[in-house]
């Protein structure tokens, strides 16, 4: 697992892409994290007060655990995870080998839209990060 060095241009570009694809669509919070549980970038609405450090660590752990479950049933890992809450739900998607995109959204946004936008966004982010590593 190589160290991740983030340049300003890649981070700015990634943030704009996330804003356009998900935040503008009504999503509450989007975190791009690495598999070690570090926050690469966080995009959220101004009134959203969230402990992103804890969320990133738990999300990375959650992904690691489900990858082990996947192996038990003969899969390499699960490329996306979804947890449905009463008001808010959370969607995790793997991007390339090292990154995980965490999307938190309310009832006003459909899961289908999130999945579609995340799939498109994943390609853009993967391309941007391929340039720096």
């Amino acid at each position, binding site marked *: *697992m190589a160290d*991740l060095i983030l340049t300003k241009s890649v981070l700015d570009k990634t943030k704009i892409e996330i804003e356009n694809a998900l935040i503008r669509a009504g999503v509450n919070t989007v975190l791009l994290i690495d598999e070690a549980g570090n926050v690469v970038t966080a995009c959220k609405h101004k009134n959203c007060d969230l402990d992103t450090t804890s969320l990133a660590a738990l999300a990375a752990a959650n992904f690691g655990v489900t990858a082990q479950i996947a192996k038990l049933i003969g899969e390499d890992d699960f490329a996306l995870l979804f947890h449905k809450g009463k008001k808010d739900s959370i969607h995790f998607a793997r991007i390339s080998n090292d990154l995980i995109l965490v999307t938190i959204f309310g009832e006003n946004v459909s899961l289908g839209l999130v999945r579609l936008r995340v799939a498109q966004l994943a390609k853009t982010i993967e391309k941007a990060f391929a340039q720096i590593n």
Partner: protein
Amino acid sequence: MALINLSKKEIHCKIVYYGPGRCGKTTNLLYIYNAMNNQARSKMLTIETKGERTLFFDLLPLNLGKINGFNIRIQLYTVPGQIIYKATRKLVLKGVDGLVFVADSLKVRQAKNMESLQDLHHNLLDYNLNTEEIPIILQFNKRDLVNTTIPTLTKEELEIDLNSELNTKVFEAAAIKGIGVFETLKEISKRTIQYVATKHLSINH
């Protein structure tokens, strides 16, 4: 796996406290958490069983100030020590930049110490890492019990068992009283930052 954010000028490192069950890994983090002010620490996250044993990990994010204009952010993790949680320990080790091996000074835990160190070597190997590359230091915990009637290991015995191959710096500690806790943290932080910085930036101290 360190994360270096050139935009925010931040370096994020992950330090893992490893060791057998009930050796005092969480106690180390709790002491650090209670002793540091709110500006330097974030919320401590604990995933434990009902019996207050670590189930997955503890996480304590710290802000250690600036070096060469870079904000140094360190995340301290512990692993569950019990043998059955091997898979969980391996997950927590993912992306580790520095290690503290906490050994139990109780004589009855002698074999568990060695078993846990072996387990660490195996788990690191699975990530193509080894203790020659990754900074590691040893902490001999529960030294406050040495002068009691409870049978304990001498420092020499612990050295032979655990440090013959590692040849690293050792700190004697009584984590519950805070003795040796910050000395350990200071040394591993220094070594970890040095390790990450010399790899990627032109900072040599």
